[in-house]
């Protein structure tokens, strides 16, 4: 018993910060449970959300998870920046700091950016291409619940058993048992493995959805750019994620079953882990940023009142980026002695990516040229993105100059660069998409005035945080150090950087406040088309009805909805409405996620009976789901007619 308690609650989870987290988790859980019980909402929660296979609701759940991830990852970031604010600071110890930068990176990539992207895929893609749902709705729910339970498993490490502490990259042999005996790395390996299964399924799902479920007449070259970005991202996921699966699985075998794939002893090859990790890791960068490119392409066209400039070049450059992305992974470790020829090859291939990316930037600018640019919040994030991303991309080219990289590698110059592209590219893009598609999700727009406050705090905070970090890199400061002495010239830039991080935190708080405010003071979108949009999702009421399209649209051009509006073909005829068949809700995906969670938790602590029970549950649910469970439900035509009459778009 004492042994078990010591295993579950080592000293590293009994520090005041962790105990505070324990307390707030208990309070929040009790509060939510009490609320649901008092309002008799448990059944509603189960029927409407936990068992849903509706892509829009799944998207909203991804979005909630992403905001939670942004909160946790952001608090981690503020803790790190607080520790680094002044030299010789004693706010966090080395062990604590190492855990927090590990969870910061891991959460921001896997449990903030990825779910945020899948949220917007789920919400927008079927609507944009004129589909009633994704190709495999139940698989979509499975993807979500695997992700959600993996997120839970990963976050549990903070309060039970201890956090991972080898960096989000988890390089071997630092993750080897002899250097890293705590269970923290097991949490990392299992949680990422479980969410990775869901991610690969999502990639397959959206690839098939986009290839097979487009509305009649929507050829590939008539698709909105966001759909193109989702298609290319899905293909990247399918080809890149298996490398991560292998890297994590072999590390897990090393740690749990005593194999020696990446160990120092027994002729293990630690560097092979680094290769596998980045063979996934670099395409992953584009898995994150291509959807943002897609969002920007929609937003810039809509708010310029003009078709996207150079559509074929935009598509071609995304495809080029996705192909090049497989050929650049060594640039993450030019300094691992691959030799001059290899380094030169990967330096050049990396620089080549700047060409299609440059083409895209120019095309976004020329989309605005000759347009009428409306500076809504969605557009502001796009306007902030262009200069930010150009500067981040330029420092990326500087890193691709191999001998230069020998000085930049693992320094704060690198830290500044990747935050510059990941925040300036991905996060700005996701915020832009959040503002853009919010009315389609919930039926009301977010408050613009508050949104602008959040925007300015976040943008200025961003530059105040990361510009000094470029300077710190030139001053020789390396990443992941928890303490530094006086007299190196690092003190002032670090202090400024910390101030900027807090400004970003204020921006995030305003955003959350604004979401709560907008939900209480709804600025309803009664038209379904609040932005004067160009693509099909704006052709339906807001929020989108369960069946999406009362009548599947017929597409004859790019920007199909814009063309329909120009031609005055915006209404639906009564006679065209037919009963609509949709898949039934199912509890199987939720239970499957739960079983994976049990299996993962068992493996983390090497409680094999628990792990096997979890895997047994997985197997049973798969068999049940495969052979037993079936079913659709039909929405009768009169119900569709009724809900379509409300916005007054129905013609007799």
């Amino acid at each position, binding site marked *: 018993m004492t042994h078990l308690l010591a295993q579950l609650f080592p000293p590293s989870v009994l520090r005041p910060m962790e105990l505070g987290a324990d307390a707030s988790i208990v309070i929040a859980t009790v509060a939510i449970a009490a609320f649901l019980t008092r309002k008799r909402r448990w059944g509603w929660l189960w029927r409407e959300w936990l068992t849903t296979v509706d892509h829009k609701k799944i998207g909203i759940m991804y979005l909630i998870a992403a905001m939670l991830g942004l909160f946790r990852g952001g608090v981690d970031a503020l803790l790190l920046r607080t520790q680094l604010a002044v030299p010789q600071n004693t706010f966090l110890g080395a062990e604590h700091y*190492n855990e927090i930068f590990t969870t910061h990176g891991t959460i921001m990539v896997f449990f903030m950016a990825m779910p945020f992207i899948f949220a917007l895929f789920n919400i927008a893609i079927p609507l944009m291409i004129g589909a009633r749902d994704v190709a495999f709705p139940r698989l979509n729910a499975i993807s979500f619940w695997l992700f959600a339970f993996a997120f839970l498993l990963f976050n549990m490490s903070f309060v039970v058993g201890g956090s991972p502490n080898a960096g989000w990259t988890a390089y071997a042999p630092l993750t080897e048992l002899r250097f890293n005996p705590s269970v923290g790395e097991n949490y990392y390996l299992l949680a990422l493995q479980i969410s990775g299964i869901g991610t690969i399924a999502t990639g397959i799902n959206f690839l098939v959805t986009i290839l097979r479920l487009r509305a009649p007449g929507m050829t590939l070259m008539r698709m909105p750019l966001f759909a193109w970005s989702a298609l290319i991202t899905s293909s990247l996921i399918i080809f890149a994620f298996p490398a991560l699966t292998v890297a994590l699985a072999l590390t897990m075998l090393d740690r749990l079953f005593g194999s020696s794939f990446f160990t120092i002893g027994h002729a293990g090859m630690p560097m092979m882990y680094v290769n596998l990790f980045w063979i996934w890791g670099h395409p992953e960068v584009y898995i994150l940023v291509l959807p943002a490119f897609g969002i920007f392409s929609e937003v810039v066209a809509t708010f310029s009142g003009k078709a996207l400039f150079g559509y074929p070049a935009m598509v071609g450059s995304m495809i080029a980026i996705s192909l090049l992305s497989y050929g650049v992974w060594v640039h993450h470790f030019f300094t691992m002695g691959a030799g001059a020829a290899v380094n030169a090859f990967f330096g050049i291939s990396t620089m080549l990516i700047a060409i299609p990316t440059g*083409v895209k930037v120019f095309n976004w600018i020329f989309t605005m*040229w000759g347009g009428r640019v409306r500076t809504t919040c969605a557009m502001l994030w796009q306007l902030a993105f262009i200069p930010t991303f*150009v500067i981040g991309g*330029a420092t990326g080219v500087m890193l691709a100059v191999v001998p230069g990289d020998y000085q930049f590698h*693992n320094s704060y110059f690198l830290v500044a660069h990747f935050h510059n592209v990941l925040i300036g590219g991905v996060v700005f893009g996701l915020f832009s998409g959040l503002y853009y598609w919010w009315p389609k999700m919930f039926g009301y727009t977010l408050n613009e005035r508050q949104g602008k406050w959040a925007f300015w705090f976040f943008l200025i905070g961003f530059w105040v945080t990361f510009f000094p970090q470029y*300077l710190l890199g030139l001053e020789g400061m390396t990443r992941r150090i928890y303490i530094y002495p006086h007299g190196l*010239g690092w003190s002032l830039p670090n202090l400024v950087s910390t101030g900027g991080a807090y400004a970003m935190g204020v921006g995030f708080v305003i955003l959350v406040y604004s979401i709560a405010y907008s939900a209480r003071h709804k600025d309803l979108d009664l038209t379904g088309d609040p932005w004067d949009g160009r693509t099909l999702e704006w052709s339906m009421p807001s929020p989108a009805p369960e069946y999406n399209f009362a009548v599947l649209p017929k597409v004859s051009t790019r920007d199909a909805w814009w063309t329909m509006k120009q031609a005055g073909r915006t209404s639906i005829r009564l006679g065209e409405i037919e009963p609509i068949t949709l898949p039934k809700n199912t509890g199987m995906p939720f239970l499957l996620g739960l079983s994976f969670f049990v299996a993962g938790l068992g493996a983390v602590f090497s409680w094999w009976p628990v792990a096997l029970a979890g895997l047994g549950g997985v197997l049973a649910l798969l068999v049940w789901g495969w052979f037993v469970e079936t079913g659709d439900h039909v929405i009768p035509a009169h119900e569709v007619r009724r809900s379509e009459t409300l916005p007054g778009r129905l013609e007799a």
Partner: protein
Amino acid sequence: MPVCRALCKRLVRWIVVGVAGLVTAGCGSHYVVLHPAGPVAAEELHLIEMAGVAMGVVILFVLVLYAVTVLRFRERGGGPYLPQWNGSRRLEVGLFAVPLIIVAFLAVPTVTQTFALDRLPPGRHHLVIDVTSLDYKWLFFYPRQRIATVNYVDIPAGTPVLFELTADSPMNTFWVPQLGGMEYAMPGRVLPLYLEAGRTGVFTGRSANFSGVGFAHMVFTVDAVPTARFDRWAGSVRRRAPPLTRAGYRGLLAASEAPRETFSGYPSGAFPQSSHGFTLQGGMYVSR
């Protein structure tokens, strides 16, 4: 709105002062990457400057184009509304060609210097130092001099030094910014790194790859001294310092930080004689 304008003006002034303050705060010696003390670091800085200037031009061009576009075509900007203008073959070819030319401009020196800095300058006498990263300390062996040091390393100024790097610990990188860029110290491999101090001086080095709790303290100094003084120092270490025994080496393996130490002699086999893998170039570094 005058209040707002005044506020904006003040804000701009703060930003300008802030940026200028940051850039100049200890401008000079604190920016170690910008103050090379040897030919390798100088060559790397040269490429960094070239890339920086090229990228600066690109950034400036895009920012100006962007600013003009946004100002002119904002709702009250008065630019013409051209909703049909959504493609121009000539413009797009140009926009493709310009980055291509810039990349080509950077690619050529990148390739030549990548090859040049990967080998020792031919025809010059060089010193070999074998470096092992341990849990949270640096161990230096001088195979010709048969001496060893911990957390500091003396080198003759003006002589190319071949650092051969390995690790008996998780991975680290060996980085002395003023002498040149870094290279990994990895278990099971020996990676070469050629550096040279062009002048005498004391230079700080550190590990740039996270390796555990003591990682932040993996700092060492490189003392570049005139060749004659280096030879005298090596001779006196050989005569006076105690040897590093096997038990002593095992003691260094314990995960801890360590003070500077000096040894005459070290156990043979403490540094790998060969490296498996694909990293060494044509045996050049193995034959010594």
